[in-house]
């Protein structure tokens, strides 16, 4: 046994920025690539959740736009989902869906519903009556009016909802480690004493949110300009 022991060098240590758990730019420069994998997981959580949330929220929004009485119940239900703290929701889902990506996505999706639904409904409701009138005058069917008049005019609201849902989800996904789904939060938890780690993991969340927000903003600018030209 002693023969094997000699193989690993036992070092003597002096105090460095790292051993002091400090904020160490050198360490960050060397190790930031280790955070790309968790960031990728984080991004997947956000993109998948917001995409599902958009499909569901948008569908609900269009349904409620036609049948106004649905607005109250749907708002109430998605509102309760939105209120349940994420750690609690991850935990509540464990007996049903187990640990992993799926559980995290279900919880995160449920948080986006209220935001997206509300903005879709408000956006559609704010379409000027004369625009609708013009559409009707052109002989468009209800379906055509929805896609050619109402949705395009509601786009700014819809994008606003998507942007809020996205930044919110980036922040909430940092707790997805409670559902065993990794992400930047899990990376952060590997060493919560080390300031470089906290700042890097937390900072990357903010960077991720800002980049996604800019992407959506860019898409919005592109679309809404088209709308103006088209109008």
């Amino acid at each position, binding site marked *: 046994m002693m023969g094997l022991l000699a193989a690993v060098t036992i070092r003597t240590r002096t105090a*460095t920025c790292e051993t002091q758990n400090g904020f160490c730019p050198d360490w960050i420069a060397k190790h930031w690539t280790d955070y790309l994998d968790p960031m990728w997981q984080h991004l997947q959580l956000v993109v998948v959740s917001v995409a599902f949330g958009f499909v569901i929220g948008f569908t609900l929004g269009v349904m409620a736009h036609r049948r106004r009485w649905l607005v109250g119940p749907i708002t109430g239900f998605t509102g309760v989902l939105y209120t349940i703290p994420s750690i609690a929701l991850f935990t509540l889902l464990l007996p049903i869906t187990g640990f992993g990506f799926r559980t995290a996505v279900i919880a995160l999706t449920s948080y986006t519903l209220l935001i997206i639904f509300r903005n879709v409904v408000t956006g559609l409701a704010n379409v000027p009556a004369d625009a609708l009138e013009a559409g009707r005058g052109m002989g468009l069917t209800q379906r055509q009016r929805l896609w050619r008049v109402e949705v395009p005019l509601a786009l700014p609201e819809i994008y606003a909802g998507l942007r809020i849902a996205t930044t919110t989800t980036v922040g909430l996904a940092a707790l997805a480690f409670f559902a065993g789904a990794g992400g930047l939060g899990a990376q952060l938890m590997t060493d919560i004493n080390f300031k*470089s*780690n906290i700042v890097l993991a937390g900072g990357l969340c903010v960077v991720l949110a800002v980049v996604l927000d800019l992407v959506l903003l860019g898409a919005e600018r592109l679309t809404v300009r088209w709308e103006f030209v088209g109008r």
Partner: protein
Amino acid sequence: MRFRSILALIGAALVTVAFAACGSSDKKDTTSTAAANAAPGSTGKLIVANPDNASKGPITIGSKNFTEEFILGEIYAQSLQAAGYKVKKQLNLGSEQIAYKALKGGQVDAYPEYTGTALTSFYGVKPDAVPKDPQQAFEQVKTFAAKDQITALPPTPFTDSNGFAMTSAKAKELGITKLSDLKGKSEKLILSGSPECRQRTDCKLGLEKTYGLKFKSYLPVDLAKRHSVLTDGQADVSVVFTTDGQIKADNLALLEDDLKFLPPYNVTLLTRDQTIAAAGPDMAQTIEKVQTGLTTPVMQELNSRVDLDKQTPAAVATQYLKESGYVK
């Protein structure tokens, strides 16, 4: 107009995906280099890649969520990879409850667990009934695990017990070297440990009962804070692991458990029977081989490289395998 809107949304999605893709392509694959370097045909310590293993299903190695587990998970994963297996990693599963559930459910094929923890947390053994002899404790785990279709592979040489530590200065000042010295002094001292420690008989409850102590208060903290609560002066006594590198680095005094209430905690790689059967004899042999060098001082050093030097567990595991001659 509708199509343009949709196009823009799709465009946004594409940019996002592209952004994500460049993130993923950058990730380092430290394990593959280890596999490539293992030259077949050598004897002794060196792990030899058996080409037959490549065709077997991937083995998923899990770990709980703290340094020693990360390092062990990496060592096992990298050594199996060196032996020619396809290996996936699911490190950072969380607490033992989560990890064991993942193991039973087949989300992971194997993960390192402490014998004492397995007995008390999974198999209903009361902490004071855990055998004080490491080998005996392991045999018990093996018997219990078999009922869950799980094989407990032979234990590591190192023992990582819970221990109670103080700063050397404080211990000297109060004249405390062993736990029974705390008698009559503990009423003025703050004890710190994980939230669960305060309710466990192999931790605070057992300490108080065995030694007849009562502390001024209890500060529950995340495991990661177990040394800084002492060095920052927020607690006087803290629950540490005996393999912690910080004990030496932070000049802490580990108090001797003179009444021997703390059970020994050696690590066994809990593996699904199914996985063992599918993987063949190379798996158990490789695991046994790489952990022979894992003595207590070595484990302390490896933990220090992560906890103090802030190297990644993956890099430290590779260093261990290379420095010990298990891989080239």
